[in-house]
Each structure stands twice: as structure tokens, then as C-alpha cells.
């Protein structure tokens, strides 16, 4: 019975808190009502998106917005189809030494979880190596594996598995903001 009473008490005190009237410090003078908070319309100079991140990386129309590299079953080879994509990201990293990249390797759900963790690591390492061969610096890149533990597609068929055999390239901006 005691336990049942407690939730009612908390509810009452929360309601009590939020409904307490705040004393008007301006002595009742009417305050101008504004729309949009500060009344300052923000303008962003060319090249940055609304979060201040480079549009080159975030605009869906940009090549660099493509961040995923897909792998064949049991394989950690970066296929020829991704040559241009890898080259574009390497070029960006070379030009922006302050930017870093986190590469996450993933696998499909089949087989050993531990082997998949190692396979995901190999996939991430393979992408990392392709980027360093094209000039990206070792200290800009970190490769990790999520194995089969974080599937993008929760399905259990060929198309889901193909989507989950994947390496993702996530940027961290020079000011430490990431991963995007």
C-alpha cells in the first residue's frame, strides 16, 4: 500500500513545481512578443550547411556524401567500383589535415560473432589502407569493428545481408565535432 502511494506523491510535486507562478520582475510592463527567439536571421556563407559543416561532405548530391563501401561474402577486398569514391575521400583528407575519419567495419549476421568481429576489423583496415596509400595520414584515421552487432538492415535475407557487409566512413571535424 505504501509503495502505491509514492507515485501519486511524486506526480503531485512535479505538477506543483511546474505550475508555481513566476513573479514578474518587470513589475507588469508588457514585453514585446518576438517570433524566432533572438530576432536575428542566421546567414551561413557559401560552403557550409545549417550546422556549419562542409556541404561538400553533407550535401546528398556530393560524391563525398557517399560513405559506405560494400563487400562480398567472406571478403575484405575493397572492390574496383569504389576506386573513385576512396580517391575522393583521400583527396579531401589530404586537403583538410585537421579532419579525422572513423571507419567502422560491419558484417552480416551469419557465422561466428567473434570471426565476424575480426572480419569487420579487416574490412575497416582495408578501407584505411586504401586511404593512406592515396595520401591520407595514419593519425587522421581510426578503424574499428562492430562485427555483426549493429546491422543497418535488420532483415534475414540476401539483400539485408548485402547491405550489412559494409564499411562506413564517418568524419570528425577539426573542431572535434563528429561523427557525421
Amino acid at each position: 500500500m505504501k509503495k502505491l502511494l509514492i507515485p501519486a506523491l511524486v506526480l503531485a510535486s512535479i505538477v506543483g513545481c511546474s505550475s508555481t507562478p513566476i513573479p514578474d520582475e518587470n513589475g507588469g510592463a508588457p514585453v514585446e512578443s518576438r517570433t524566432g527567439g533572438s530576432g536575428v536571421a542566421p546567414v551561413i556563407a557559401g560552403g557550409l550547411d545549417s550546422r556549419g559543416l562542409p556541404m561538400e561532405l553533407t550535401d546528398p548530391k556530393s560524391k563525398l556524401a557517399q560513405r559506405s563501401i560494400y563487400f562480398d561474402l567472406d571478403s575484405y577486398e575493397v572492390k574496383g567500383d569504389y576506386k573513385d569514391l576512396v580517391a575522393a575521400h583521400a583527396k579531401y583528407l589530404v586537403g583538410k589535415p585537421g579532419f579525422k575519419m572513423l571507419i567502422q567495419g560491419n558484417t552480416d549476421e551469419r557465422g561466428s560473432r567473434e570471426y565476424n568481429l575480426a572480419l569487420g576489423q579487416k574490412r575497416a583496415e582495408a578501407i584505411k589502407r586504401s586511404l593512406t596509400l592515396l595520401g591520407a595520414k595514419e593519425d587522421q584515421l581510426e578503424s574499428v569493428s562492430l562485427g555483426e552487432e549493429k546491422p543497418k538492415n535488420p532483415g534475414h535475407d540476401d539483400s539485408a545481408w548485402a547491405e550489412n557487409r559494409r564499411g562506413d566512413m564517418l568524419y570528425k571535424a577539426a573542431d572535434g565535432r563528429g561523427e557525421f
Partner: protein
Amino acid sequence: MNTMHLITRRIFLVFSLLTATVAQAQLSIEITGAGANRIPVAIADLSGDPTASRVVTATIRSDLERSGLFKLVDTTGAALDENSPINHGEWKGKGADALAAGSMARSPDGRMEARFRLYDTQKGVMLGGKAFVTGNDQLRAAGHRIADEIYEKLTGEKGVFSTRIAYVVKSRGQFLLQIADADGQGAATALTSAEPIISPVWSPDGGRLAYVSFEKKKPVIYVHSIATGQRTIVANFKGSNSAPGWSTDGRRLAIVLSKDGNSQIYSVNADGSGLQRITQSAGIDTEPRYSVDGNIYFTSDRGGSPQIYRVSANGGDAQRVTFEGSYNVSPRPSPDGKSLAFISRREGRFQLAAMDLASRQTQILTDSNKDESPSFAPNSRMILIATEMGGRGVLSAVSSDGRIKQRLSVAAGDVREPAWGPFSK
């Protein structure tokens, strides 16, 4: 405001208790196959305190039946205890090769004492008997102890009814590391996390679990004391830290680190000190498991496809162990050193396989599609695996000859990553 804080904390506690009960989803067991020559055994209702007797008798019977090695003979109408004279001919006539009779009595300190005797009705002799003192909330444990005694006397092998299992349940987006009795009863949650938990393994003394947790957004190896909940980080290097396997003396762990690029095998003390590299390859080396003969079995793709290899626990040259097929992983040497369980991919299906290490003969033990994570019972007779049934993760126990199969499932979730604990002390 302070009192409100206190009250919210108390509410939170009540809530945690409620959710803990919900999360303690019981494993239910279904027997899907039995041995060919089951020993007919009669377990008479224990006499004495009726409530306690019912619990203990039922536990003994279900343990023996579930093992797939025994056939229960009807004992209706028999009123026996451990001191009753036994009419061996009568029980032989009912088809029983063995008979157990006993009683439950209250011991002077208020606890319960379970006593039993076991008879060979064919030879007309007593095989043994014992008494176990137990708390009123531990009656099933007494049943498991008696079932272990009967099992050992009749098969010549130690029973595993008193052992525990660990496994991971994924339910409502949470990962629960649970520990239950070998029959799936009495599940308790040792760890709850929003991130995946994989690869639990029991320390040889049964007091600790090593596992991999993603709670730091990457795989990190922990050792967790079950009774105290105290956790120690064993390895948290750059990259992945995974696949712990205890040495047979419980002092060291074989682990897998990718700090130098690829996943490679190292060994380390259980407190994280004394790191030593074991393998040196250009490919993947993972899933190390110590065998009783001082070797480490592991998975490697150094030959082009994932296969099982063996290396001395101190390192050196590795020998390839599996050759059939293009995907053989998750090696688990049996505690008796005679066989190796692993997962083999055959025509796209992942199945439990066992290799006789003397003859190198391999047998596929299941007919399923997605077997994972085999784990031997400490008597080497059964192998616990994770598999899939109707799109859900379930556990399955398979005898090492493939004949006996039991399925363990949780109603509200996926069960995976089983680990069978050692013999209880």
C-alpha cells in the same frame, strides 16, 4: 527538492525491481531427441514433508529424463523411504533396472535434509546413498545433487545437473547477461546493457565470467565476479578487444587484440597484466581456446578461408586442424581432451560439428541452419549451442554423438552466446 529526489530514487528502485522480475524470463526446455538405449529407472516419491518432497522428487525425475539417458518407470502406489526393505524382484518385474527411494526431513537447525538410497534391482544390491542438507529455498538444488549421484552411479560419468549456464538475452533493445541452472530455472541477470554483450566464458572455479561488452562503443574485455558484481577491464587497447578464453588453471586469458592492425592472439593475466603475443600472422587469428593438453585452438584465415588451427599455449608454429569445407570456426576442445566441437558451413548452412581428435573423424551433429557458439558441458557429454527457431534465437543442447537434443528458449526475446559453467563444488 531534496525530498523529491529521495522519493524519485525510491520510485526508481521499485521500478527496477519490477523490471528485474520481467527480465527474469525463464528458459523453457523441450526435449526433441533421446538416446537409443535408455536405462529404465524408478524414482519413488520421497517420503516426509509433502511439499518439499514434491519439489525434490520432480527435480530428480525431470533431470534424469531430460538427459535422454533414462526412462522413468511408474512408481504410483509405492510408499518407500531410504530405510524401507526393497523387493528387488517386484521392481525388476515393473521393468526398472534401478530404484531410488528416500525422504525429506527437517534438520535440527530448521533446514531440510534430503536422503536417498539407490538400488540395482538386477543384482539386488544397494549402489549407494547420500544426504544433503539444504535451505527451504534451495530444494531444487538438493534434487539436482541427488540426480547427479544417480546419474554417476548408473552411467559411470559425473552428472551436470548442478551446474549453471550463462547466456545473453536480447529483449526490447537491451542486452542481459543471465545465469541460470542447467535446466534453465532460476535465471538471474548479472549485467544489463544498452550495447551488445558477447562471448561470455566461465572461469574454471565458476566464480567469474569473462566477456566482451560494447558499452564503451567498442569491444572491451571484462572479468566479472558473479557474487559481488565487481568488474575488471582486462583489455581496452586501440581497436577491438575480444574473444576471451580461460587457461585451465584460471590464471590467464587468451584474448584477441587488433591494436597492431589485424586481429591476433595474445595472452594476459586475469587482472590485465603480463600481456604476451601468441600468434604472428598476416590474416585474422581469433577465437582462442585452451585445451587440457596445453594447446590453444583458434580460427585463422591464413590459408585463404577461415579454418581451425592449433598452437602451443606459448606460441610457435601452428598446425591446421580442419580441412573439409571453406568455413570452420569457433573451436571448443572438450574438457576430457578427446574431441573438438566447432561450427562448419556446409552448403550455406552453419552446423555444429565434432571431431574425434585421435582419429580426426568429423561428424555433423545438427540439421539446423544457423548454429553458433558451442560450449561443452563439464562432463564433455553435451554441447550447448545458439541456434535459430522460427526467426528467434534459442539455445539447444546436443549430445556429443548428436542423438539427444534439447531446446531452451525464452518467451520474450532472443537468446544467444551460451556458456556452460564448470562442475559445482
